[in-house]
């Protein structure tokens, strides 16, 4: 299913939660809505589901205008931030709900419903928990019950509001990959809201970066990191540190770093966004000094002090940096925007 949003506006009191959002999502895509809190991402998601009514603009699903279609007729699977499981129902009843409430003619029989619930519980890897109540489940289990409940109505669009927000780091990572696998297997078109850039960049085919009720950039993770649309996006992604510089003739000049290419940026004062992978630190006499070097599961995390700034950098191959050691820093690339 394709989703298209045009000029979507939504105001609360005097504040615009959505300020002319445009977005087009293709069949089978897995899309992240990424942005700080208050950027309008949840409002956008709820507008797609019909839980929120935009003041202006259009939502088209498979080309059909959804303005007059209530939430219950959209057939969209929605997983709520705190799961919103029916607290007075067992896991079985929760998952069966969407089937039980169908008009009699479309309602599957009792045995068929039981079979479907069992199937869904196996799909979300929670067999044997039918009789539990939501309070008796862990966060990760609740999340998967919520997912199974949403999938019971066989939606072709799945919307997830901060699906991993309330889970601890380890469960979160497991569920991420599993959810991505599920999306691919079921041929869904999915959108999920997150404020965690790692989650968005790791999971999504494309990421819509939102700010102040607008989609400022909608691209693949590679493009977002390589060519951010503006300084805001550049600063938001990839742990980039903003460093003041001066652009002259297509090169950015720093106070304490070697110059780097900044093509297409007009001359004058500018800001360069430098990610840890943009900076290579090498041992030897230089202006920089090792401020901290920590080993974590992924390698050495190195912080260098240079001209009064603390910057994260990659250590050169085979070098074990010691605190206080002098080093020099090379700039491999930078995203430069006029100040």
């Amino acid at each position, binding site marked *: 299913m394709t989703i298209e949003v045009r000029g979507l506006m939504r105001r609360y009191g005097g504040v615009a939660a959505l300020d002319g959002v445009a977005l087009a999502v293709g069949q089978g895509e897995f899309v992240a809505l990424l942005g700080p809190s208050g950027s309008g991402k949840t409002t956008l998601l709820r507008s797609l589901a019909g839980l929120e009514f935009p003041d202006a603009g259009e939502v088209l699903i498979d080309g059909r205008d959804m303005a007059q279609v209530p939430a219950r007729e959209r057939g969209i699977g929605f997983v709520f931030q705190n799961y919103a499981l*029916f607290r007075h129902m067992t896991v079985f009843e929760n998952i069966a709900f969407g089937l039980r409430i169908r008009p009699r003619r479309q309602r599957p029989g009792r045995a068929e419903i039981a079979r479907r619930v069992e199937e869904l519980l196996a799909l979300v890897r929670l067999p044997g928990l039918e009789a539990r109540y939501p309070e008796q489940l862990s966060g990760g289990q609740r999340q998967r019950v919520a997912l199974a409940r949403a999938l019971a109505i066989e939606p072709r669009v799945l919307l997830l509001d901060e699906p991993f927000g309330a889970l601890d780091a380890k469960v979160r990572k497991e569920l991420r990959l599993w959810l991505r696998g599920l999306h691919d297997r079921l041929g869904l078109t999915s959108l999920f809201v997150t404020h965690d850039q790692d989650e968005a960049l790791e999971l999504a085919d494309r990421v819509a970066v939102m700010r102040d009720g607008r989609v400022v950039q909608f691209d693949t993770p590679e493009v977002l990191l390589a060519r951010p649309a503006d300084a805001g996006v550049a600063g938001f992604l990839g742990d980039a540190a903003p460093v003041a510089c001066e652009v002259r003739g297509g090169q950015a000049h720093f106070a304490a770093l070697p110059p780097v290419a900044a093509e297409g940026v007009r001359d004058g004062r500018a800001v360069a966004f430098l990610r840890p992978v943009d900076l290579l630190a090498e041992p030897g006499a230089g202006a920089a000094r090792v401020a901290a070097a920590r080993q974590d599961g992924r390698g050495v995390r190195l912080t260098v002090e240079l001209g009064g700034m603390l910057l994260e950098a990659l250590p050169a191959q085979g070098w074990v940096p010691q605190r206080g050691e002098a080093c020099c820093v090379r700039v491999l690339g930078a995203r430069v925007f006029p100040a």
Partner: protein
Amino acid sequence: MRRATEEPAWLRWLLCLAAVGLLALFLALPLAAVFTEALRRGIGPALAALEDPDAVAAIGLTLLVAAIAVPVNLVGGVAAAWAIAQFDFPGRRLLTVLIELPFSVSPVISGLVYVLVFGAQGWLGPWLETRGLQVIFALPGLVLATIFVTFPFVARTLIPLMQAQGRAEAEAAATLGASGWQIFRRVTLPNIRWALLSGVLLCNARAMGEFGAVSVVSGHVRGETNTMPLHVEILYNEYQFVGAFAVAALLALLALVTLGAKAVLERMGGRRLESA
């Protein structure tokens, strides 16, 4: 081990004593007095007082008024609480305040308002009279006054609960294809059922016991527009103490049964939540 929040023993005892003492003095003692006075000359005269045709009529009328007023307030209270908790609409705050109005206005005034509106000299009185409808000094007036006075019980019990539970479950049900009625029947109602029962029981207790507003609109026609509380007053003023206290005891008994039922239901509700 002493906890940080623990008070010294003498203070705890003092507080407990004060609470129990006040309860005994102001609640238990009068209740006990009602029953002793009723049975002062034995069970026979007390029962005889209850079999008096006027007493029977008063009991019947009280039950009838409650049987009409409570269901009306059940529906109205649920509707008001549902509207306030589930929707944002202009005037929502005002509605919340208005619901408490019957609690803050003196019942006598509530009754007087109905007399002013529906009475023979009131706004609608002449219009009603030409159609042969009597509201004041008749059953409709009693029911109206009772509904007004007892309206807040159901709504007030439900609003905080429904607000705390939020709208997420209802929204989830909507995305799964549920209609408004299905959401109410299968999601909202089961979540509020224990609070609803408790509110209905309180409402019922008050509907049977209401004196002030009912007194104004009743006209005190014996055997016709006298409810139990009014009957108690008449008997008492006529120095028929055994009769007065016998009817009062029955009324108190109804209230105690209601409270007992409420306590049992609340425990069941609590246990259900724990086991769930």
